[in-house]
């Protein structure tokens, strides 16, 4: 599998396309976190991407994809001198499921949901449009200039950000936004834009820096996990009414499978990389960093949602808890019961997959074994505190949970910051980057070992992965295995990808966990029955059987 980097967007729906997933009907204003005029507001959010307050005369314009199509369709004549290839729009338009995000609202499933939920029309309902289109529905629309129609689905602006301009008016000097600047025919004007820092482009001009792993993950997560603070969230009522379950989210895999309409950094030419100020380490570690940081950010967004729910929304909201802890058939010998309980039996647990790979990221960020031990201990302490709240009463007490999860989120934020610092330091030398993918891959394999269900009598019970956690592990494995191809040599990468893809046991695992998200702009319904069926039949031992064979075939230590 290849690795890739983005120019751009990712946003709301990937998953629906995805396997068992669903359309993210939800809610998110998705990409918006970054797009909005007001600073995003998770209180505990440690890296609040401060967007400067909008000046009174400035307007945020939500442009339509037609604004991009002239340049980004046919490919540039001199691609070596361009930041991107200029062929992005057709990929989105013809292959990407984000394109049909709005359309699916009118499908029978969407209409049925509207009926059950008592909505007038899901196609105009803000809680749906917030993720299924690029418009800013509801009150927020009043503050901005929306030129994109919901029919476009999740289009360019949703992830890349709105254009911050001063519109021509009497007595006012108008000002062009990034849209005109970055694509200007005037070479000097355009170069001036190029020289701007990525963060300035975002903060001052509204163009989201999707190369930043934190930002990218937040943009995707705002729909794929949800953002309660922004009323962008698939509630349990929505699920019950028929919204497909949002699957576990892993940002590298979902980005790659969008399909990718951008180039990886390693595919870009030297002068472009220089202009964008990417270091050799950034290029080398593009995927690894995105995986490590994305994992933490996804977990943080999950915690933020719980915090916000406890703080300001009806409590409890069942959608924050593990769907499959309850939604499984009752059997006399089920793996759920065999594995025991982390806390008090009978209380809905957290969505464990969201933290499944956190240990890997912590290890990646640690400078020494001692530091790693300390971080793991801190992580477990926070986790146990949250678990204790959930043990005290079903769903946890509102006030306690708010406190514990917000503290936890702040801690995760600290770790993300450390990771980013290390990334920056790696660019200036040091050995952080050395063998990073191999180290992480070994960590993933070691994690799998710890997750294996106890089989010998008397063996201590341990965490045993559910379907979504197993998937997180397999996705991380896939990303990292290919990344271990020496020196990012294109031929080597291809060879590694092929070796994995051709492996019959990997294929079985791929089938078993539905690792490859359904392609094309098909209806969401296709694949849903099948994926849910696989989910219902999932058994951890079966997963490990496939996984072990893959390790053996690839000569990796079990």
């Amino acid at each position, binding site marked *: 599998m290849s690795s890739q980097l983005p120019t751009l967007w990712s946003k709301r729906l990937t998953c629906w396309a995805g396997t068992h997933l669903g359309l993210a009907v939800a809610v998110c204003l998705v990409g918006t976190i970054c797009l909005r005029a007001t600073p995003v507001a998770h209180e505990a959010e440690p890296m609040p991407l401060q967007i400067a307050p909008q000046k009174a005369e400035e307007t945020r314009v939500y442009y339509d994809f037609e604004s991009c199509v002239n340049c980004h369709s046919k490919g540039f004549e001199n691609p070596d001198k361009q930041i991107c290839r200029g062929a992005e729009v057709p990929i989105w338009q013809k292959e990407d499921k984000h394109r049909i995000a709005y359309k699916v609202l009118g499908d029978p499933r969407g209409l049925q949901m509207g009926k059950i939920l008592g909505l007038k029309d899901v196609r105009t309902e803000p809680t749906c449009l917030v993720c299924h289109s690029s418009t800013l529905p509801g009150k927020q629309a009043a503050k901005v200039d929306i030129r994109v129609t919901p029919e476009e689905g999740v289009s360019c602006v949703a992830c890349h950000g709105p254009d911050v301009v001063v519109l021509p008016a009497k007595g006012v000097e108008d000002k062009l936004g990034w849209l005109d600047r970055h694509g200007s025919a005037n070479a000097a004007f355009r170069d001036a834009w190029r020289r701007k820092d990525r963060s300035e482009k975002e903060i001052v001009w509204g163009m989201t820096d999707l190369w930043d792993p934190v930002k990218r993950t937040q943009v995707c997560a705002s729909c794929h996990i949800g953002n309660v603070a922004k009323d962008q969230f698939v509630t349990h009522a929505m*699920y*019950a009414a028929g919204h497909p379950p949002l699957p576990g989210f892993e940002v590298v895999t979902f980005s790659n499978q969008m399909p990718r309409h951008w180039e990886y950094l390693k595919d870009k030419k030297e002068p472009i990389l220089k202009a964008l100020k990417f270091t050799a380490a950034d290029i080398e570690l593009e995927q690894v960093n995105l995986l490590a940081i994305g994992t933490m950010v996804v977990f943080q967004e999950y915690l933020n949602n719980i915090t916000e729910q406890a703080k300001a929304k009806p409590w409890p909201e069942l959608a924050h808890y593990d769907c499959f802890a309850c939604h499984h058939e009752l*059997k006399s010998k089920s793996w759920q019961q065999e594995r025991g309980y982390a806390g008090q039996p009978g209380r809905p647990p957290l969505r464990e997959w969201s933290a499944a790979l956190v240990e890997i990221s912590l290890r990646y960020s640690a400078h020494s074994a001692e530091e790693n031990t300390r971080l793991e201990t801190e992580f477990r302490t926070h986790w146990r505190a949250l678990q204790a709240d959930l043990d005290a009463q079903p769903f946890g007490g509102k006030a306690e949970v708010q406190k514990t999860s917000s503290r936890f989120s702040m801690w995760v934020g600290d770790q993300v910051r450390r990771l980013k610092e290390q990334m920056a330091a790696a660019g200036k030398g040091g050995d952080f980057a050395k063998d990073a993918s191999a180290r992480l891959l070994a960590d993933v394999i070691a994690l799998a070992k710890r997750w294996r269900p106890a089989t010998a009598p008397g063996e201590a019970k341990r965490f045993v992965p559910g379907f979504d956690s197993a998937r997180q592990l397999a996705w991380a494995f896939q990303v990292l295995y290919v990344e271990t191809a020496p020196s990012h040599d294109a031929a080597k990468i291809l060879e590694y990808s092929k070796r994995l893809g051709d492996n019959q046991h990997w294929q079985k695992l791929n089938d078993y966990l539905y690792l490859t998200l359904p392609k094309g702009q098909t209806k969401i319904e296709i694949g849903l*029955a099948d994926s849910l069926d696989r989910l219902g039949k999932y058994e951890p031992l079966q997963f490990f059987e496939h996984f072990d064979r893959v390790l053996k075939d690839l000569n990796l230590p079990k």
Partner: protein
Amino acid sequence: MSPRRAVVGLLAVLATATLAGYAAPLEQPVPMPAAQAPKVLWLGSGSCAAMGCHNANGLSGEQRSEYTTWVSHDRHARAYEVLYSVKSRTISANLKRPKAAANDSLCLNCHVHAAYDKTDHHPHFAKEDGVGCESCHGPASTWVANHYRNRPTPEQKRQMGMADTWSLPGRVRSCLPCHVGTQDMDVNHDLIAAGHPRLAFDFSAYHALMPHHWQDVKDKKSGASPWARDDWDAAAWFVGEALTTQAAMRLLECRSASRVWPEFAEYDCYACHHRLQKLSWRQERDFKQREAGSLAWNDWYFSGLPLRTFADNAKAGSAVKSIDELRKLMEKTVVPKAAAGKRARAVADLLDDWARFLCDRNFSEMDRTDARRHLTAGAVEQAIKNTGSWDEAAKNYLALVALSQAPGDMSPKVKEALSRIRDYLRAPEGVHAGSTHSPSQLLQPYKLLQESWSAR
């Protein structure tokens, strides 16, 4: 005992009944042993086991072989033993209980007797006997010596301190603390998740299946005993249901005062515990009455079936209304704890009145026929609309069996229809049928029943 077993076995039970009957007065529940004077001692089942008394080694159910019957056939006698099973140890470990199940009062309160660790035991008392004589008949120290002298009447026995297991309400109430639950004897969702089977009590079915160590004729042939009534089977169903629902309401009230809320054991297991499917009938039929994604209150205790068969009765009407209002509270997305508890108490009080009415009533052939028709018509309607839970379907089936115990009730056609319903409701080994229940599957047998009953 699982509802499935009850379902299976009940059909086989063909009890007899005849004349018009004496309705025993509705007694207040036996005072809990905890409330007994300190002198009261639990002596153990051994104290009943003299050969000349209740252990004559006769056949099951023979007079003077009550102990014999219990010890050799009744699963209550194994109630303690089961605490040593792997399953029990797992439950205990999952709940991180400080003591092993066999010494844990949480378990002993039902697997031996109520308030186990708050009562006094004679040195010969053996908890190893499980749910023994005194667990239902009351601690024996005050009456063991004289309960057989001069043939005391039930009233006299009661005065000696024996628990009322003769009258219908007395008998029902001797089962309820363990089989439905009380504050200290609560099989809640924590316990179920840890591995304990769910409780789903049905008095008529459980009573029919329990090895009888007494003579049915004393219950069912008027004149055979002071409490006998010819309409015993029908009355047992009506009274059993009313008091069971009442006990469940009292339990709900206790639960609503706990920090563990919502208490998932109040809800329909299969409303949540089912595999997620692409096309779910639940979305089509479940959300007409309640908010999408809210919890569905269980129909095992709260469907109000027997009340609904008395559509014209004002008492029944107000109880039904009250239960429906409580259902609305229980099925809110955020369940209002205090309001639900308060209403549960009010419903329980209403049911007191209702149970008294039922006890005093002489159930006629017409009552039974009407009730059966009503239940069948309801089931047909649900099958057509494809709505209703597994719990409701199972209770409906059990009701029809309980109401078809008079001679001649079980024609081959009726029997066939009931067997088909039972077979559908029964779980395949290892999986519970409730997860995949689809009421439309029951349309044919219910139509068959409808025909055979209207034919007469």
